[in-house]
C-alpha cells in the first residue's frame, strides 16, 4: 500500500461514506466548504450593495412597479424543488445506486434549466417591454448584477452537473465520482439558499415597499 500524500489515519476512514473514504476526497470536500464561505461573502457584498441602491431609481421604474408575482413564484418553486431532487440524488449516492443518482441529477438539471428559462424571460421582459436595463438606474444595475450573478452560478452548475453525469455514466460510482457528485450537491443547495435571500431581500421587500 502506498503511503499517501496526506497524513491521516486510513483505518478510521473505512466507516465513512464513499466520498469521504479517501483522504483526497475528504480534503476536497473541506476545501469546497471553505470556498462556499467565500461565496457567502461574495453574495453578502452583492446584497449589501443592492440594498444600499434599492431606492436609487433615478426616475426609472421602481421595484414595486416592475416585479410580477406570478413568474417569480414559479421560478422559486422550481428552484426549491430542484434542491429537493438534488438531495434525493445524494441519498441514492449513499445507497450506491448509480441509476437513481443519475436520474435525480438529470431531473435537477432540467429544473435548473426551467429556472434559467424563467429568469431569462424575466430579464428580457424588463429590458424589452419596460425599458429597464442595467444602464437605467443604480437600482437596476444592482438588481441585474445580483440576480445575474446567481443565475450565472446556476448556469455553471448545470454545465458542471452535465460533466459529472457523463463521468458517472462512464465510470459508475467510485470514490472520485462520488466526491464530485457530493460536492456539486453542496453547490446546488448553496445556490438555493442564496435564492431564498434574493426572494426575501429583492422581491418581497420590492413588493411591500
Amino acid at each position: 500500500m502506498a503511503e499517501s500524500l496526506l497524513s491521516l489515519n486510513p483505518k478510521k476512514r473505512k466507516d465513512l461514506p464513499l466520498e469521504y473514504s479517501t483522504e483526497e476526497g475528504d480534503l476536497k470536500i473541506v476545501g469546497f466548504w471553505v470556498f462556499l464561505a467565500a461565496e457567502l461573502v461574495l453574495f453578502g457584498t452583492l446584497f449589501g450593495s443592492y440594498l444600499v441602491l434599492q431606492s436609487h431609481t433615478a426616475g426609472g421604474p421602481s421595484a414595486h412597479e416592475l416585479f410580477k408575482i406570478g413568474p417569480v413564484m414559479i421560478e422559486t418553486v422550481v428552484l426549491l424543488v430542484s434542491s429537493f431532487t438534488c438531495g434525493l440524488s445524494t441519498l441514492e449516492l449513499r445507497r450506491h445506486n448509480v441509476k437513481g443518482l443519475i436520474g435525480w441529477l438529470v431531473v435537477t438539471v432540467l429544473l435548473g434549466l426551467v429556472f434559467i428559462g424563467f429568469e431569462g424571460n424575466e430579464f428580457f421582459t424588463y429590458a424589452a417591454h419596460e425599458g429597464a436595463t442595467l444602464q437605467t438606474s443604480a437600482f437596476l444595475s444592482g438588481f441585474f448584477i445580483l440576480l445575474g450573478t446567481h443565475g450565472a452560478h446556476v448556469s455553471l452548475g448545470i454545465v458542471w452537473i452535465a460533466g459529472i453525469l457523463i463521468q458517472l455514466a462512464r465510470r459508475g460510482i467510485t470514490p472520485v465520482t462520488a466526491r464530485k457528485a457530493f460536492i456539486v450537491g453542496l453547490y446546488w443547495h448553496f445556490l438555493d439558499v442564496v435564492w431564498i435571500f434574493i426572494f426575501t431581500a429583492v422581491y418581497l421587500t420590492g413588493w411591500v415597499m
Partner: protein
Amino acid sequence: MNSITNFLSHFFVTGDPMIYGADVSIVLVTLAIFFVLTYFKKWKWLWQEWLTTTDHKKIGIMYIIAALLMFFRGGVDALMMRTQLALPGMTFLNSDHYNQVFTTHGTIMIIFAAMPFIFGLMNIAVPLQIGARDVAFPFLNAVSFWLFFAGAMLFNLSFVIGGSPDAGWSAYAPYAGTELNPGVGENYYLLAVQISGIGSLATGINFLVTILKMRAPGMTLFKMPMFSWSILITSVIMIFAFPAFTVALALMTVDRIFGGHFFTIASGGSPMLWANLFWFWGHPEVYIVLLPVFGIFSEVIATFAHKTLFGYAIMVWSMVAISLLSFITWLHHFFTMGNTAPVNAFFSISTMLIAIPTGVKIFNWLFTLNKGRIHFTTPMLWALAFIPNFTIGGVTGVMLAMAPADYQYHNSAFLVAHFHSTLIAGTVFGIFCGLHYWWPKMFGYLLDEKRGKWAFWVFMISFNICFMPMYFLGLMGQTRRMYTYPAGLGWGPVNFVITIGAFGMGVGFVIMAYNIIWSALHGKRDTTGDPWDGRTLEWSIPSPAAEYNFATIPTVSTRDAFEAMKEDKRAGKEKAPAAYKPIHMPNNSAIPVVMSAFMFIAGFGFVFWWFWMAIPGVIGVIGCMIARSFVYNDAHLIPVEEIERTERAAGRLS
C-alpha cells in the same frame, strides 16, 4: 490607411522618450530570453520542470522571481516620482504621467510584489514546516500562481499599450469612472487586479485546508511553528476579504464596460459605496501582507536568539485579535468624507485597539531576545531593524487613528510616511528577512553574509533618510499625490533629502540583486540542510528539499520539533527511521498555464471593449475547467528505489 494609423497611435502609448525606452527594452529582453532558451535547448526543460509544475517549492520560487521583477518595476516608479519631487517646479514628469506613476507604484507594490512574495515564501516554507509533502490542492496552487502572473503581465502591459491607470491604487469613484476617466487605463487596473485576486482567494483556501488537515502526526495546532500559524490566520482573512474586493472590482467593471450605475454620479449611483467596498477589503489586505512577516520574524528571532519563542500562545491570540479587528476598521481610511461623529468614534477606537495586540507582539519578540545567544546574521539584522522602525510606523498609525486629529494629517505626506514605515519596515524587511533565511532551503546554497549585510545597512539607513523627513514634510503641509510645488513653500530641501534616501534604497536593492548573482556563483553550499541551527521541521531535510519533501513523515511531540529531535540525538535517544514506502505525488499539468493564458486574452479583450476577443477567452477558461474535470490520471507513485537513490545522493542514507 488613416484609420489604421489612428488606431495604432492610440493602441501604443506614444510621445514620451521613457515609453519608447520601455518598448525597446521589452522587445530586447523578450528576444534575449527567446535566444538563450533556444540556444541552450531549454524550452522543454522550462515547460516540464517549471511551467507545468505542481510542486509547491517550484511554484514558490516562481512567485519570488516574479515578485522581485515587480519590485524592480515598482521601485523604478518610486524613483521617477522622487526625481520629479526632488526640487520645486521640476518638469521631469507632467501631472498626467505623475498620476499614472503613483497609481502603478501602489498597485504593483501591494498586489504584484508584496503579496506574491509572501505567497512564494509560504509556498516554500509552510508544507515543510508542518511535515507535509505538498499543499492540499497542488493543481489549484499552480492555477493561483498563473492567475497572478497573467494579472501582473496584463497590468504591466498598460505602460506601453493603451495607457496606464491614473486614479490611484484605491481607484476612487467617481474619478475612476468612464465619464471622468475615459480610455483603457482603469480597465487595465480592474481586470488585472481581478484576475490575480481570484488566484489569491484560491491560495487562501488552499493553505487553510493544508494547515488544518495535513500537519504531521502529533503536531497539534498549538505545536505549529509560528510562521504556519500566521499563514493560517492570513488565509482566513483572505477568504473573507477577497470576495468583497472581487465584487467591488466587478461592479466597477460593469460600470465602465457595460454602462452600469453603481458608482457613477448620475442615475443614482453611489461613489461612497466604492470607498466602503474597497476598504472593506483594503484594510484586511494590510494585515494579509503584515501577519505573514510577523510569522517570519518570529521564526528568525527565535532561531538566532537560540531560544524558544517567548509567549507562544499570546503570539497566536494576538494575531487572531488583529485578524478580527482588521475587519472593523475600514472606515478610518475616510474619516473626512462626512461620516457622523459616532461612526468616526467607533472606527477611531477599533483602530486604536489594534495597537494593543501588535504591541504585545513587539514585547514578546523583545523578551525572546532577552538573555538569548544572539547571532547577528543577515536575516537577523532585518528582523532586529524591523522592531524599532515598524514601531514608529505603528505609533504614527495611532496618531492617524484619532479622527479629530486625522483631519489635520489626512492625505498629507505624513500619512505617506506612516504607511511606508509599516509596509517597508514591516513587509519589505520581512520578505527580505525570509528570503535570506529560507534561501538555502530553496537552492542549496547560502546568500553571502558580507554582501547581504551591505545591502541591509544601505537599505535600512536610506529608508530612514527617506521617510523620517517625510513625516515633517507632511506636518509642513505637503499633501500626497501632488506632482510639483513652488519654491516659496520651503519644502525643497526636505524633498531633496527624501529623494536621496529613495535612491539609497534603490542602491540597497541593487546590492541585494548583485548578492543573489554573486552567491549563485560563489555562495557557500549548504550540505547539512540545517545551516542556521534551525528549530522547525523544514531544516530536518536536505537542501534543496526532494520532490516529496519528507522520505518518511516525522512524528512530532513538542513545539520546535526539529530542535527536540536534535536534543534527542545528542542524548542518544534518536529514533530509528521508519522504512520507506512508495510515495503518491501529483502529476504536472499544462492546464493552469493554458487557462491563465485564456484569462489574459479575456482580460485584454475586456480592457479594450473587444468582445470578439473577450468571449473566446472566457470560453477557453471554462473549457480548461471542463477538461480538468475529465482528467483522472493525475498522480504518480515514486518507488522505494528512487527514494533511496535520492536520499543517498543527499547523504541521508549510507
